[in-house]
């Protein structure tokens, strides 16, 4: 069981690095979706059998929203807004990967110093959750397009979800489903916004928004 969780966590780190190192939007969307599915599967492994119904509900909701609905929404936005399929980064791909690695090491160092109310199921879970959140933030600030910022937001949320599942396994179902609903609405709204910005301005490069004056 522990090996399974560790394997999932390592794959999550690899998908993070893939998001940082890939130049294709489609690859990024797919790897973020894979991340969501893996974390959903991890929900099963992390919880005890006492709360089976709750776990199943949460896992299925998380997998269907993050693994199916989000990629569909994002691909639709990609198609409708006729976005160029390449990411335009402020920070280069190789440097991004190295920064991602540095963030993982930082998270390992931090997690050893972080006092937790209870011992997490795997010693990897806190560093991976922290590093996923940090990488999400980094993707938000280091990429030009609005759609990659949505992706960064999703990676950030995946990190928070991983933390919740691994460290606070008895958090109420309502809270976790509420977070999931929030994220869903956010991505939905952002998808529509991207489409409308595109209609208005012919592109979705957010760095041009600074030119706007009221």
């Amino acid at each position, binding site marked *: 069981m522990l090996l399974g969780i*560790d394997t999932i966590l390592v794959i999550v780190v690899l998908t993070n690095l893939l998001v940082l190192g890939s130049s294709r939007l489609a690859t990024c969307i797919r790897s973020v979706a894979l991340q969501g599915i893996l974390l959903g599967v991890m929900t099963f492994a992390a919880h005890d059998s006492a709360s089976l119904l709750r776990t199943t509900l949460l896992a299925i909701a998380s997998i269907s929203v993050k693994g199916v609905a989000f990629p569909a929404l994002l691909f639709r936005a990609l198609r409708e807004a006729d976005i160029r399929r390449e990411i335009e980064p402020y920070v280069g791909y*190789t440097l991004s990967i190295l920064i991602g690695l540095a963030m993982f090491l930082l998270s390992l160092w931090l997690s050893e110093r972080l006092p937790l109310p209870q011992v997490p199921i795997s*010693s990897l879970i806190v560093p991976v959750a922290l590093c996923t959140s940090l990488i999400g933030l980094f993707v938000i600030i280091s990429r030009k397009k609005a759609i990659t910022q949505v992706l960064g937001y999703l990676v950030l949320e995946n990190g928070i979800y991983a933390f919740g599942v691994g460290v606070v396994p008895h958090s109420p179902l309502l809270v976790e489903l509420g977070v999931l609903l929030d994220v869903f609405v956010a991505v939905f709204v952002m998808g529509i916004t991207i489409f409308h910005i595109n209609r208005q301005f012919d592109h979705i490069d957010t760095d041009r928004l600074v030119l706007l004056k009221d």
Partner: protein
Amino acid sequence: MLIARLLPPLLALVFAPLLLGIISRTKAVVAGRVGQPLLQPYYDIWKLLQKGAVYSSTTTWVFRAGPMVGLSTILVVLALLPFGGIPALLAFPGDLVLFAYLLGLMRFFTVLAALDTGSSFEGMGASREVTFSALAEPALFLGLAALARQTGTFSLSPMFENITTESWIQAGPAFVLLAAAFLVVFLTENARIPVDDPTTHLELTMIHEVMVLDHSGLDFAFILYSSALKLWLLGTLVVSILVPVHQSAVWLNIAAALAGMVGLAVFTGLIESAMARLRLLHVPQLLIGASVLATLALVLVLR
């Protein structure tokens, strides 16, 4: 016992060119061609051995020494490498550093011989070869460090002896990352696709092949044979991690390791059929990716 220890180098000497044959046969089958005979690399080497070498008048002794130094260093490396559970002929703590830098010495002399010809193409190839292997070195060493930490030894023979099914259960993700990192090193150092195309016909795009353009006859046979041996050596690193078979019957271990080598050759052929060569600018990204994988593995086993 010593007789058994002679087995790993002997197997390498006999079967190494076969790997090249298997790779090109796999590529041919995938492309729907019949392909050259499996033993073609042996025929090539045999043919070249019977020919005389031609030397350009601008070259010096360095050019003539290159292939010989290459072959002799690789023969020494063969003595350091265990195969299929049989310990190496020479094993001492720290032999993994010697292993890596003897390969480095071989590369250094290949590069010197290439530069000695004064051809601009060869200089370009030499520059690329050195750049890419400098970038592959962190991946190799971080990977070896992770293996050393996991197995608790600095010598290659006990290191591969200690990779067992139990350690796979204990540190499986780390081993998979290591195998992936070593696979990239294996493809880079042996000038295979996606880093370099061994069958390319344009000097501008060559990396390894362009450095040996001026060698002929006996010298070229040496070069072909030593690159086949290098393929075998670095392939052994990957296979020893992925095939941790330690049965009591020696022949079973060897059979498993040989099957692993054949599997690796077929896999290389499949990679070469499925992928195109990366643009030169993207190769460093691949190699840094491999170093990152090795670093992750090291972090995982250090924890």
